């Protein structure tokens, strides 16, 4: 399930089609998913996202392989009143639609911070760990250079160890959460200053 779409595919925002059937209460975790199902999820998620924000984004990026959707707001910074709304929308931007109840493969959402930095956010509720095991060196510390996809932390959810990965090449400029802290979905964990020429 990789390489369904060009990772850097940029498409203009699509109009929201409310005719799309919505998941109903009571739908059970399904099995036997196909590529078409995943694509369908991507499209539906994108439509949901676009219907949920008041300001149309400048770009929508879709990455397949555990499926990631990103919206971006370019241009001048939003006025103060709108800023928190936009931030909230950005937090909601990364949607996972991977395998059923995809706890094992939830990509950490990345959120642009407005000053060119990128936050790595918790992809699941759980306990945040900076190191693979107690007493060992942390995966990363402030100032470290990281590559996209490099593991930077762990979140433990019900004894499952879920790696947190860097979404961009760049430098770790802040770690916001102490080792062993309970986090919820979307909590800001680390901040990366992206390498230029991404």
């Amino acid at each position, binding site marked *: 399930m990789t390489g369904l779409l060009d990772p850097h595919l940029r498409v203009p925002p699509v109009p*929201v089609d*409310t*005719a*799309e*059937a*919505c*998941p*109903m*209460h*009571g*739908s*059970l*975790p*399904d*099995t*036997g998913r196909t590529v078409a199902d995943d694509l369908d*999820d991507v499209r539906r*998620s994108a*439509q*949901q*996202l676009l*219907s*949920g924000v008041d300001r149309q984004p400048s770009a929508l990026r879709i990455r397949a392989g555990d499926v990631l959707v990103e919206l971006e707001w370019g241009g001048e910074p939003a006025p103060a009143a709108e800023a928190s709304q936009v931030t*909230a929308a950005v*937090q*909601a931007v*990364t*949607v*996972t*639609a*991977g395998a*059923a*109840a*995809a*706890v094992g493969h*939830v990509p950490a*959402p990345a959120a642009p911070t407005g000053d060119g930095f990128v936050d790595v956010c918790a992809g*699941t*509720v*759980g306990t945040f760990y900076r190191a693979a095991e107690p007493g060992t060196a942390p995966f990363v510390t402030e100032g470290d250079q990281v590559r996209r996809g490099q593991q930077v932390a762990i979140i433990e*959810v*019900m004894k*499952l160890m879920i790696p947190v990965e860097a979404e961009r090449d760049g430098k770790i400029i802040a770690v916001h959460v102490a080792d062993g802290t*309970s986090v*919820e*979905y*979307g909590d800001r964990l680390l901040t990366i200053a992206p390498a230029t020429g991404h």
Partner: protein
Amino acid sequence: MFTTVLIANRGEIALRVARTCRELGLRVVAVYSTEDRDAAVVDLADEAVCIGPGPARSSYLNMAAILEAARRTGADAVHPGYGFLSEVPDFAEACEAYGITFVGPPAAVIERLGDKAAARATMAAANLPMLPGSDGPVQCPDLAVQVAAGIGYPVIVKAVAGGGGRGMQVVHEPGDLVRQFREVKSAAQSLFGDDRLYLERYLPTARHVEVQILCDQYGDGVYLGLRDCSAQRRRQKIIEETPAPGLPADLARQMGEAALRGALATGYVGAGTFEFLVDHDGGFHFMEVNCRIQVEHPVTELTHGVDLVREQLLIAAGERLTLRQDDLVPRGAAMECRINAEDPARDFVPAPGRLVELTLPGGPFVRVDTDAYQGGRVSPAYDPLLAKLVVWAPDRPQALLRMRRALGEFHAAGPGLATNRDFLLAVLDHPQFIEGTHDTSLVAGINPTGARGLTEEASIG
């Protein structure tokens, strides 16, 4: 008694459960997806945990995230509401394994009753009247042809794992059976991950009547009257009422007793609903059991003066039922309309959006269960239920008048938003509905654009 209840649900039912918890002095933990950040229950709860992104699969169906949220907040009980994980045996089992009280029947009971073929067998053994049907699942189309010939047409082919109106097909002609059997089989596999099917006689014009039951952990149980849910559109209930209009008291009592007998035979614990079909000759037939609180539970609450969620919580905490069957005498009539964000003019497609304007009905004996508020929105990610409008009156004609009046007060508007309000009014105005003589074929015959008359939509979805 537990002290903190995590509500593993969203929308109006999460808010409704939270309110009763509050009245019982229980701490409330809400869980929510990023789509529901602004939900009313998130504000009301003592603590709220974001468990994932919008798609239910990654949030409200994500057992690990919900259990982690319970661990994080010290919740010692989980109320699953309806839908989502409410009837998933693995979830009930996982809660118990982590020392968390699951507010619902034991996992084994959910599992047995969730398998529709097994439920049929269990209830037949408890002497509940059954429609003619297959003994257990039917594996191959050829066998289905034989079985159907024995049952008589029309037959309905149903997924063993089905429910909520999905994974079923009515077959009118023997020549269609093999093809339709295969279609349902593949649909069942993709919907439920289980392609086992069973067959039953189909009654085209029956009434859908269900019995509310409550059972404690000590083998004691009561039934709380009947709800008529015959006003359905493509097997989705839209108007429910109690008592079932025109149903003889003796038949109602027989049905209540049969449901309770079936429940006690399976070791049922908690609130549950036994669904029956009632034919025009006054015969009733077991259909299925819902192991959860129902969407339409408020009508029973209004006529019986019982908070069913409170009873669920007390039963889960190990208390004995204090309700006695002889005391449960319903008063008056109650009716519920499900106001959905959907567009009847466009074949009822979901029409969610921001609620720029929202006026909710009020006045005497009117209850509105909703978590919608002006300025909020109906999310496109979930079920389009916007509000449940429930009224009580001393009798059915007055309840009808009150429902019309209250529905008339309801107003919602916003970009892209539509509701079925006017369609509900058209159903209320239908002569058969007014008489209370309607069956499950009524709604299909009402033109969604308002003009009365038959549409091309068949009586079955």
